[in-house]
């Protein structure tokens, strides 16, 4: 891409040289225009090369940027997976999704334009300078003096702009968020009769925002003005120097050797000398946007809510008939361990209830078994395999349902499920009649978060997935905690069917009816497990 940019600049140099040559020959030498076929062909060739190299330059940048963004996205997905659901629970999914979508998009300009332009801003002026130096070293000196002054002045202005903007960043941030904030709180404003006042506020704040922003912009735009000033002055000085040189008013240095050819050539190159710098200044905000985005992307703190998940090499040990945890110690950094020394053994086909007061570590134990968190010490094997090696069915307090049809919701977890299997699974959880009543059967759309279903129906729909993925181990974390009594009864009914199906089930619960289903009850208290 930098090469394409350089070719582009060289094509322009040829173009300028040939234009100057033809003018020199026809105007000064008095040659006939019809004798200029050679340069004319050269000119057309230069135009073609310049066009092609321009497209190539853009294209290479775009492709590189798309590749980088896709790579960053895949990297972020890996990070999410490595952290696991428990460690990520403290972060808003909207924020993380915003990182994944918008912030990654914000990297585009930096990789597609700014980064290669940084090189071009150095290489293109240097090659032009070389040509001008060969033509007339004094003119090259003018350009050389002007060029380094530009970054210097821009740096000075940039620094003062930075100070100014730091000063205003808090204020401006508040003002910019003002509108969003008022829209979000419209209900409250309506309830308190403050809508008219808020409308006036919004107008007033936008005015204030303008004042604050303009103060910063006035300084920020100085940098582009400086660039413009040097570019203009350099062209003017070069033009005057060449003009006076041609007239023979300047005896100094190489001036007496100037011709209309070299003079025009230099003049045509002068604006092109500054163009890459101006482009760089234009793309400067790309850099700022990308830096902001990069801050957010790197900002997933390593161990905010727990130890990172280290996926062990999944050992394909011999299959056994029990779920075993030995001397588990687990917790979250900055807190004392939630599980102290927990050992348990559950045989295939057993239904075990896990009880204990809230905060006693029930969820932590389930998370260890599911492989969501890494225990500090101890070992877990599920039928001889490491957690994560084979599918496990998981159901929390709130079912995970997406906006989509029944089928979409089932396929999300069990991508290969057949329609007949889905009907069977829904029948097993007692949803057969509900599905039959849907206008489009399994293709009926559900609202976001299962809107349109009762709490019990939603939880049973999630339970139907357990049947579909045919997992041997089922882990349930207070599946009835947020349900009303009727829904609770329905879910317990579905759990009974599940228990009868011969699966190995561990349920964290407070509910006596569920405890009654279990073959065995384990009580967790202050990180210590006891049989009951």
């Amino acid at each position: 891409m930098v090469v394409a940019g350089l070719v582009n600049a060289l094509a322009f140099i040829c173009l300028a040289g040939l234009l100057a040559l033809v003018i020199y020959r026809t105007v000064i030498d008095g040659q006939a225009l019809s004798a200029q076929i050679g340069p004319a062909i050269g000119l057309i060739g230069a135009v073609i090369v310049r066009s092609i190299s321009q497209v190539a330059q853009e294209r290479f940048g775009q492709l590189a940027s798309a590749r980088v963004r896709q790579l960053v996205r895949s990297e972020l997905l890996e990070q999410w997976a490595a952290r696991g659901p428990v460690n990520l629970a403290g972060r808003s999914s909207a924020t993380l999704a915003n990182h994944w979508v918008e912030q990654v998009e914000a990297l585009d300009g930096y990789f597609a334009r700014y980064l290669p332009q940084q090189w071009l801003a150095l290489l293109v002026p240097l090659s032009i300078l070389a040509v001008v130096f060969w033509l007339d070293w004094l003119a090259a000196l003018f350009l050389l003096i002007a060029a380094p002054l530009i970054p210097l002045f821009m740096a000075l202005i940039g620094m003062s702009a930075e100070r100014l903007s730091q000063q205003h960043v808090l204020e401006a941030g508040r003002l910019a968020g003002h509108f969003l904030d008022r829209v979000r709180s419209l209900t409250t404003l309506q309830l308190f009769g403050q809508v008219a006042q808020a409308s006036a506020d919004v107008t007033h704040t936008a005015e204030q925002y303008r004042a604050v922003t303009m103060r910063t912009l006035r300084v920020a735009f100085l940098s582009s003005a400086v660039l413009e000033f040097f570019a203009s002055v350099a062209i003017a000085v070069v033009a005057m120097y060449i003009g006076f040189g041609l007239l023979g008013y300047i005896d100094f240095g190489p001036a007496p050797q100037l011709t209309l050819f070299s003079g025009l050539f230099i003049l045509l190159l002068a604006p092109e000398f500054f163009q890459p710098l101006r482009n760089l200044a234009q793309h400067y905000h790309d850099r700022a946007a990308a830096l902001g985005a990069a801050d957010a992307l790197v900002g997933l703190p390593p161990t905010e809510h727990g130890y990172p998940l280290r996926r062990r090499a999944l050992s394909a040990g011999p299959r056994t008939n029990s779920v075993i945890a030995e001397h588990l110690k687990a917790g979250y950094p900055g807190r004392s361990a939630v599980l102290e020394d927990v050992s348990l053994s559950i045989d295939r086909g057993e239904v075990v209830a896990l009880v204990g007061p809230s905060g006693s570590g029930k969820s932590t134990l389930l998370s260890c078994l599911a492989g969501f968190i890494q225990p500090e010490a101890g070992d877990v094997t599920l039928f001889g395999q490491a957690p994560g090696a084979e599918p496990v069915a998981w159901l929390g307090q709130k079912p995970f349902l997406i906006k989509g049809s029944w089928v979409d919701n089932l396929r999300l977890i069990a991508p290969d499920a057949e329609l007949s299997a889905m009907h069977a699974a829904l029948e097993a959880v007692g949803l057969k009649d509900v599905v039959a009543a849907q206008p489009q059967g399994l293709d009926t759309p559900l609202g976001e978060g299962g809107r349109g279903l009762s709490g019990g129906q939603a939880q049973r729909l999630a339970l139907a997935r357990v049947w579909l993925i045919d997992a041997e181990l089922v882990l349930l974390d207070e599946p009835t905690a947020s349900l009303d009594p009727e829904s609770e009864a329905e879910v317990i009914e579905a759990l009974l069917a599940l228990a009868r199906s011969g699966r190995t089930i561990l349920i964290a619960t407070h509910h006596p009816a569920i405890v009654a289903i279990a073959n065995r009850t384990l009580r967790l208290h202050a990180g210590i497990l006891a049989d009951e």
Partner: protein
Amino acid sequence: MNELRPWLALIMTKRARLTIGALLIAATFFSAIGLLALSGWFISATGVTAMLWAAGQRVAFDVYVPGGGIRFFALTRTVARYTERIYNHNTVLGLLADLRSTHFSALARLDGATLSRLRAAQWLNRLTADIDTLDTLYLRLLAPPAVALFGVLLVCGVIALFHLALGVLLGMALLILLCALTFGMAAWAMRLSAARVEQLDQLRTLSIEQLQGLAELTAAGTLARHQAQLLQASHSMLDDQLKLQLRVALGQALATTGVLICVLIGFFGALWVAEQGVLSGPVAVLITLALLALGEGLAPLPGAFAQYGATRAAAARLNQQVALSSQLPEPTAPHPVPGDLTLNWEAVDVEHAGIANLDLALPAGTSLAIIGPSGCGKSTLAQLAARLIDPDAGTVRIGETALNQLTLQDWRAQVGYLTQQTELLHVSIAANLLLAAPDTTDAQLWHVLEMVELADMVERLPARLDTWVGESGQQLSGGEGRRLALARVLLKDSPVVILDEPFNGLDKATAERVRRNIEPWLTGRTVLLLGHAPELLPRADRTLTWSELQS
């Protein structure tokens, strides 16, 4: 174009500023043309003069007028550019203020049901992004093509003065190029650029699904497949974007090539005419360089017009929102608020909440608690009572008067409603409280803060009452924010009070203290309490469960 009409009309209210802004852009552009063209002419003219002098001819050459011209253009280009940028950004920020207040007024008329449909953060962010897109309409889509058009006309007009046919030929060629770079580019990129917002939305939805279902997906071992699906979606979005960018790159190359071809036509044309003796060599150089300088005005057009589809789509979305009307009609002949504040829900239907033919009475001066799980629809009763929504069928009455016979303002002044979702503004603690009663003394503020057990906490803050609450109350904990919202309702001191899960996010001990503090205050008011369980609510005269209520 129709989508943009209302916004263009809004922009055009600043016609004078816009004209001056465009003139400044034009001044910058013309100075650049002038600087290059005049310098070229000057050099060529000096070259020719020097040649004549060498041949022994005595011709006069005034170096001062063109020299002054060059210096003038060099200066105006800098000054015009700086002034233009400041002036136009000032205008655009002014437009932003207008756009936002127009849009806010439109939204503020909406009822609760419509608003809650719109509330998703995604929608809000898109709203601001859409408004931002429109506020640059002028700087990207209106001023630059206008200035480029004038530039073309001016340069070709000057050429036509020297040689009519050459000027007309170049003018035609450049106008066709201009159309291709604006209208052509817009049409060519329309579908791709309009689809982008939707693609980003889809990506966001998918990634949120993965995050929310991370536990289920990880456990079931299907995470890898979902990841692959997400990356595939991202890949196809990037693919479409690359297609769009390719079109932009080709458009930009067309701009460069088109201008250079016109330069060559002008160059050889002018030299050929010069050979006939119609114009001089230096003028031929002037023409060539003026054409070359036109490139600066045409180069940004393809990039801007490729986004036309996105701009139009943004305008269409905003139009849709402005066109939403409130479902809450104001009475033509409003009744006064009756003395008897007994609330009656009479045979009300609310389809979206699954409420059918519901009857309920809340006698004036008594309290009623309704118990049910979150999301069961009990909040809908409260919204009906505060008239954030109207029932699909049936009537809500206060005393003998139907609620829709009162003005919204009169009725809402009677109701203090703590909504299920805590809504705090991004202002100070005091300002949040003052929403309820603008003329309140600090002593009264401290009093309500004491009632919700927040006084000690606020006292310890360095700025005390003037401490800013983070966006959506983020600098307060969930429980503190909840209590601040409760304090605001207490401060309103209204005869009708609705508390929807008031102690959400409070620990048991605090909830208990707050409950003891506010129970005396609630006595004698008409009170509707909503919650998961009776022990999470203040004491009520009557308690109903949601399932009892529905049967």
